C-alpha cells in the first residue's frame, strides 16, 4: 500500500537579505495509514516548517526542493496554490497549536466546520447542520447542536481544540497533521485531546504529530523523529527511542525533562566530555538544610473576589527559610492571584500575609517598602517586566542597593551576570535582542541582586524550550543552594514542581485541595483532583508502552 506521506531529501530554504536560512536540510519522512509519526525538536529545529510544507504552507518566499514529495501517492512538487487548496482538507487536515487564532472569531464553530463540508462538496446544504453536529460528536464535544451555534471565544481551550480537529477531519482526509496540538492546554485537557487523536488513528487516520515535548508524543506515537537544525538526528520506534536513545542530543533532551526521577541532579548537560560522548548526569550542589521552624512567609485565609466570582478561597500556607514550595494548578485555579497577593501587588479581600514577621497585606505601601527588596518576583515573560528603554545592565542595576557608587554598581552587575552564566559583554545589550533563556537569566540576576530571602517565581520556565528550561531550572537550583533563598514556585507543570520543590500545594478553583511534602503528594495523592492531574501527566516512564 502506498504510504500517505512519502518524502525524500526535503530541503526548505528562506532567502533573507543577509543570506538564506536553511530551515530543513534533507530529511526523509513516511507516514502510513493508521500510523502516528511524531517529529520532535526545539524552536528553530525546522519541525513546523516540515509540517507546513506538506500542506503547501511553507511560507512566503520559501524554496522547497525534494527528491520525492508524495501525498497519498500523488506527486505534489510544483503544485500551485490552487492545487494545494484541493489537497488541504481533502487529503490532509491541519491542526495548529492555538485554536483561538486558528478559528475565525466572527463565525460560529458550526459555520467554520460547515465551510469545509461545502468547499469539498461533502454534503448538500440541507444535511450540513446534521453533519456538523455529527462531527462535533465524533470529537466528543458535549451538546454538539448547541456548541455549533457558538463562537470560538465562548468555548474553553479544550473544546476549541476539539472543534478545530472536527474541522480538520470534516472532509475525511486520510492524513491529519497536528502542530503542537496540546501545547496551550492544561494537562488534563491535553490527555483528553491525545486520547482523541489516538482514537482517530485507530479509525485508520495517518497522524503526523509535531511537538517539542517528548513525553507527550511518547503517549501516542508509533515512531519518533528527532530534529535539530533542520536535520533528523535520530529516529526509531517510540519505545526504543525513549528507552535507549543512541544520539547524544536525544539523550540530552530526555535528561532535560524534569520529573520525580530527576530530583537532585542537573537537567542540562553540564559538560560535554567530547563529541558523541554521552552527557554525564551531574548532581546538583547540596543545599543548606531547610529551617522548618523559621518561617519566612505565612499566608492565612487568603480570599480574593472579583464581583460575584471568588478566584481565591481561604488559602493558607507557610514557607520556611530556604524552602521551596511548589504551587500547582491548572489555568484559572487562582495560583497567579496568590502570587500577586504574596508579592504585595494585590490586596486580599480577607486573610493576611506575614513576611519576615512583618505584616505584609492590608498595610500602606510605605510600610512594605523597607522589606520590598527581601521579596523578589520572577515572571513568565521577562521582557514585559523590563522597562523597554533599559539595557541589560540598567535592568539589573536598578535593583541594586541605591547607596552604591557608579563603579560598584558596574562591578555588581558583571558579577551577577557571571552568576547567572552570562558574559559581561551583554551589559549594554537590549533585553529584546537576547534569546528567551538569556532574558530569563537577566530576570533571575535582577531578582537575586538584593539577596532576597524569598523569590516568587510565577511560571518562570513555561515559555522556554525543554533544554533551555533545564538550564534555567539548574540555575535556580544552584542559586538556591548558594544563597539559601526560599522559593515560591508556581507552575502548571507537575514535573517541574516535582523536580524542584520540597513541599507542594495543589490548587483548584481558587482553593487548596491538597498540600504536603512533594514525595507524599505526588506518590500517594489523597485528593481525587491531584490523582487526575497525575494520571493525565504524560511521563517518559509510561511513554511508549501500549
Amino acid at each position: 500500500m502506498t504510504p500517505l506521506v512519502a518524502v525524500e531529501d526535503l530541503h526548505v530554504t528562506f532567502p533573507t537579505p543577509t543570506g538564506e536560512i536553511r530551515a530543513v536540510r534533507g530529511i526523509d519522512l513516511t507516514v502510513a495509514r493508521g500510523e502516528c509519526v511524531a517529529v520532535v525538536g526545539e524552536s528553530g529545529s525546522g519541525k513546523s516548517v516540515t509540517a507546513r510544507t506538506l500542506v503547501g504552507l511553507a511560507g512566503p518566499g520559501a524554496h522547497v526542493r525534494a527528491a520525492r514529495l508524495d501525498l497519498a501517492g500523488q506527486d505534489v512538487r510544483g503544485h500551485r496554490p490552487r492545487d494545494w487548496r484541493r489537497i488541504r482538507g481533502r487529503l490532509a487536515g491541519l491542526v495548529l497549536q492555538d485554536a483561538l487564532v486558528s478559528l475565525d472569531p466572527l463565525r460560529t464553530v458550526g459555520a467554520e466546520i460547515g465551510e469545509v463540508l461545502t468547499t469539498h462538496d461533502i454534503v448538500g446544504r440541507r444535511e450540513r447542520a446534521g453533519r456538523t453536529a455529527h462531527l462535533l460528536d465524533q470529537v466528543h464535544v458535549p451538546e454538539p447542536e448547541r456548541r455549533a451555534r457558538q463562537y470560538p471565544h465562548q468555548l474553553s481551550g479544550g473544546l476549541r481544540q476539539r472543534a478545530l480537529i472536527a474541522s480538520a477531519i470534516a472532509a475525511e482526509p486520510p492524513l491529519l497533521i497536528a502542530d503542537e496540538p496540546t501545547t496551550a492546554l492544561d494537562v488534563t485537557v491535553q490527555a483528553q485531546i491525545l486520547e482523541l487523536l489516538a482514537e482517530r488513528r485507530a479509525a485508520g487516520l495517518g497522524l503526523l504529530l509535531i511537538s517539542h515535548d517528548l513525553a507527550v508524543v511518547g503517549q501516542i506515537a508509533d515512531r519518533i523523529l528527532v530534529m535539530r537544525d533542520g536535520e533528523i538526528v535520530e529516529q526509531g520506534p517510540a519505545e526504543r527511542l525513549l528507552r535507549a536513545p543512541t544520539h547524544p542530543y536525544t539523550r540530552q533532551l530526555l535528561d532535560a525533562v524534569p520529573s520525580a526521577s530527576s530530583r537532585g541532579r542537573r537537567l542540562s548537560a553540564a559538560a560535554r566530555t567530547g563529541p558523541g560522548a554521552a552527557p554525564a548526569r551531574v548532581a546538583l550542589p547540596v543545599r543548606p538544610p531547610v529551617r522548618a521552624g523559621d518561617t519566612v512567609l505565612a499566608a492565612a485565609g487568603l480570599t480574593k473576589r472579583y464581583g460575584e466570582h471568588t478566584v481565591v478561597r481561604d488559602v493558607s500556607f507557610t514557607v520556611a527559610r530556604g524552602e521551596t514550595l511548589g504551587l500547582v494548578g491548572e489555568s484559572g485555579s487562582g495560583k497567579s492571584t496568590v502570587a500577586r497577593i504574596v508579592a504585595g501587588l494585590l490586596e486580599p479581600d480577607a486573610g493576611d500575609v506575614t513576611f519576615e514577621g512583618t505584616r505584609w497585606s492590608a498595610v500602606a505601601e510605605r510600610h512594605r517598602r523597607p522589606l520590598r527588596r527581601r521579596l523578589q518576583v520572577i515572571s513568565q515573560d521577562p521582557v514585559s517586566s523590563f522597562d523597554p528603554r533599559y539595557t541589560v545592565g540598567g535592568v539589573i542595576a536598578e535593583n541594586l542597593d541605591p547607596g552604591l557608587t557608579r563603579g560598584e554598581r558596574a562591578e555588581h552587575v558583571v558579577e551577577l551576570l557571571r552568576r547567572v552564566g552570562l558574559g559581561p559583554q551583554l551589559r549594554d545589550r537590549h533585553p529584546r535582542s537576547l534569546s528567551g533563556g538569556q532574558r530569563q537569566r537577566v530576570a533571575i540576576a535582577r531578582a537575586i541582586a538584593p539577596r532576597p530571602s524569598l523569590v516568587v517565581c510565577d511560571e518562570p520556565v513555561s515559555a522556554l524550550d525543554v533544554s533551555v528550561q533545564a538550564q534555567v531550572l539548574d540555575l535556580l537550583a544552584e542559586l538556591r543552594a548558594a544563597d539559601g533563598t526560599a522559593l515560591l514556585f508556581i507552575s502548571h507543570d507537575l514535573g517541574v514542581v516535582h523536580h524542584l520543590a520540597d513541599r507542594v500545594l495543589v490548587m483548584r478553583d481558587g482553593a487548596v485541595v491538597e498540600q504536603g511534602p512533594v514525595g507524599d503528594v505526588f506518590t500517594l495523592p489523597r485528593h481525587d483532583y491531584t490523582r487526575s492531574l497525575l494520571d493525565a501527566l504524560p511521563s517518559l516512564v509510561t511513554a511508549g508502552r501500549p
Partner: protein
Amino acid sequence: MTVTLTGTTVPVDGEARSPIVRPRGRLRPGPLTAGAYLILLIVAVVRPGLLAPGDPLAADPLAVLSPPGAAHWFGTDHLGRDVWTRVVHGAGHSLTIGLAATAIAVTAGVLLGLLAGLAHRIADEALSRSFDALSAFPMLLLALLFIAVAGPGTTSLIIAIGIATLPHHARVVRAQTLLVRRAEFVEQAVTFGLSRTRLVTRHVLPNVLGPIPVLAVIGLGEAVLAASGLSFLGMGPQPPSPEWGAMLSEGRNYLQVGWWISILPGAAITLTVVALTVLGRHWQARFDGRQPR
C-alpha cells in the same frame, strides 16, 4: 483641509520594537522632499535675507500688480510689493505663531494628561470631561471665541490656538499614562521598593513622553493651518505684516486682475502643512515599529 491625528502608543511589551521589526531609517522620496522643504523654511525664518534680500514692506508704485517676470519672479501685489519677498519674510510670522501655539498645547496637554492619568478617579473624571468639552467645539470656533474676548493680535492668536489644540495632546498623554502605569515593568519596579515619585519619574514619564515629539510635529502643521485661517479672517497680525493668511486675504480682492498674489502664500501654507504631516507620520511609523509608507 483638516489634519486628522491618531494617537501614537509606545509598545509597552517591547517586543514590537525589537531590532528585527524596527525598520531601518531608509531615505524615502516623500519624507526626504518634506525635509528639504522644511530646511528651506527654517532658512526663511532664521535668515530671510538669504533667500529674499529685499524689504517686504517696500512698495513700488511703478510696479503695481505686475505679473510674474524677470524683475519679480512671483509678481507684485496691489501696492507693488514683491510677493516672493513677502512670503519668505512671512514664514517667520506664520511659523512662530504655529510653534508657540504648539509649545503651549503640548506643555499644558502633557501636564494635564499626566495629571489625569495618574490622579485618582474623581480628578481624572473631572479633567477628562473638560477635555471632552473642549474637544466638542470645532477648533477654529474655540479659537475665535477666545479672540473675540481677548481681541485680535499675534499673542492672542497664539494662546487661542494653543488652547484649542490642547485637548488632543492631553487625551493622548492620559491614555498613554494609563497604559504605562499598568504595564508589568512598572508593577515589577514596585517590588524593588521604589517610591511613587521615583516610579513615575523613572519608568512612567519617560515611556509616556516617547511619542510626544512626533505628535508635536504633526500638531505643528495643524497649528500653522489654524494660524493662517484666523489671520485670513483678520484675527492675527495686522497689515502690513507679511503673514501668509493675511496675504491670502489681501490678494482675494485682486484675484481677477492679479491671481499671482494669492498663489504663493497659499502654496506656502499648503506645502508647510503637508511637509510637516508627511514627516510627522514617517517618524510616527518608525516609532511604532511599522514600515513607513
